[in-house]
């Protein structure tokens, strides 16, 4: 008998009363009169920065202004013309180390906790974490209220990976003092893109 069969056999022999699945459709989840306002507020609370982009504004110039000292910029987005590295064509994932700014796209944001859904859309997802500073391009109109709505919307492509990101990497593991920039991006800037 395989371990799988043995485990399941033992479980079936031991499990007692079986309980029904509750109805989840009646959850009275929080909604906001202006989800975008709440999203911006929460993003700042979790240590992120949000910039609303006016139609026609060149984000490449803006990113240069935001990070004047940045040398290595990694992105595979067609609208980013200042990239020095491409996570689709890089030799090994580790070669993305030393990236000053990684620029990626998010699908939608969540108002209640500032999560942004980032499905993997590049060969090496390392760019989302290894970069010192992360910039996420997010369509301004794509903000949902809460995680219930979010989990009805998430989609995967063939890469089979996606993550919700809410602000920069952080830790309080030394004496409970909050420090931004543990193992992944030390800053997160969300650019709210016009339609």
């Amino acid at each position, binding site marked *: 008998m395989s*371990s799988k069969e043995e485990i399941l056999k033992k*479980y079936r022999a*031991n499990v007692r009363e079986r309980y029904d699945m*509750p109805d989840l459709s009646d959850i009275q989840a929080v909604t906001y009169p202006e989800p975008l306002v709440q999203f911006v507020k929460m993003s700042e609370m979790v240590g992120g920065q949000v910039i609303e982009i006016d139609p026609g504004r060149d984000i490449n110039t803006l990113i240069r202004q935001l990070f004047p000292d940045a040398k290595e910029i990694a992105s595979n987005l067609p609208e980013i013309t200042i990239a020095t590295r491409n996570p689709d064509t890089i030799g090994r*994932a580790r070669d993305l180390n030393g990236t000053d700014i990684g620029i990626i796209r998010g699908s939608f944001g969540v108002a209640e906790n500032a999560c942004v859904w980032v499905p993997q859309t590049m060969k090496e997802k390392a760019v989302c974490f290894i970069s010192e500073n992360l910039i996420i391009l997010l369509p301004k109109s794509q903000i949902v209220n809460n995680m219930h709505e979010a989990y009805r919307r998430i989609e995967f492509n063939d890469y089979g990976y996606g993550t*919700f990101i809410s602000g*920069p990497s952080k830790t309080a*593991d030394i004496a409970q003092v909050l420090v931004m920039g*543990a193992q992944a991006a030390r800053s997160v800037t969300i650019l709210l893109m016009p339609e």
Partner: protein
Amino acid sequence: MSTQHSKAAKEFLKNPNYAKWHDATFWAVRTKRDNMAQGLEEWEQLREKASAIKRHTITHLDEYLNQFATNAEKNGAIVHWAKDAHEFNEIVYGILKNHDVKKMVKSKSMLTEECEMNPYLEARGIEVVETDLGERIIQLKGQKPSHIVMPAIHLNHDDVGELFEEKGISTEKGNHDPTYLTYRARLSLRNEFLTADAGMTGANFGIAKTGDIVVCTNEGNADMSTSCPKLHIAAIGLEKVIPDYDCLAVFQRMLCRAGTGQPTTTYTSHFRKARPTAHHMHIILVDNGRSEWIGNPDHWEVLKCIRCGSCMNTCPVYRRSGGYSYSYFIPGPVGINLGMLRDTQAHSGNVSACTLCLSCQTVCPVKIDLGDQIYKWRQQLDDFGTANPQKKLMCAGMNMLFGSPTMYKMATAVSPLANIIPSFIMNMKLNPWAEGHEMMKFPKKPFHEMIKDYEQ
């Protein structure tokens, strides 16, 4: 009752300033949790749903585990089943050996602590590097976690600063600023991420309907552990599998709000398969007692636990005695119960570490009756042969005293005489009730006489 925990707690209480800081720190986390909970009108409804989902799922695990494994395999992952810790360790080692792995980075996993995986692999020549900052600190220190979410909470910034100096991680002697130390650890761990051959993660959730492994971290270390190495192994306890995303939404909203008082973890990452440039992803489903515990009529619901840590944060005994006072590697209310399920003989001392205030089950996001369960374990202590003889004798005495009205009246009549015994005798070491506080003063008249006067 047993005194194993209180004896161990003496060590913790030797440094009263630290003990006070520990208590206040966890109370602050509890307060943050309250702010989060009170900020959502649906919080109590979410707790109800979370509890009901878990009750359903852990009593239908055979169906959900099959569904999860089928879908994970369809996604391209390789799924293994481990009956116990030994088989789990063997499977991990087998995979690593096959890929000629010398170094593995890993994110936090209480399951690998439970299976004592690190020493098993290290004895076989594999370097294992913990990448959660707290876990890394205690690994360098050769210690065990003292809390499941804040594993290095028993160390202060000077302890960490000195450790980093000794290990060559920090270069500025005497700079014990947490921001500086975190930055130095970042640099050191960055090098480990880049040079490791494999990355291991635990799993907060497995999703039956889609085959996802979901890992929640604040540091991004699970994502870093799986972004560069060519191999990803995920370790998941059977009870962590849930039906679908609608269920996940409930738990995702509660996990961090309950545990650390944040609205979410920074990263909630879904893994379905390996990166295009990596080998297959391996998922190891681990039983190690769970299929047996589900049959325990009083204690099966402890399998609902999502490991948020809120029961320890709020526990007055944990806050004032620290993680190392418990004999099981998971401390606090849920650790007391898990330890008893694991080995009643070895861990029954922990059931004394409870005031039955039930704060734990008031905050538990999945509504486990943690305190009630501890009470039930206590009723069986005598059967385990671990009851404290002194307390047993006291109980027998009290039984006699309170069982006989004549004897009780006589005793209360003479009790004020205890007041005139010199305090150095009453507060001496032989009287365990006088430890840490002065002996009480007996009233001149016993209560039943006072109430008679009042009625007249």
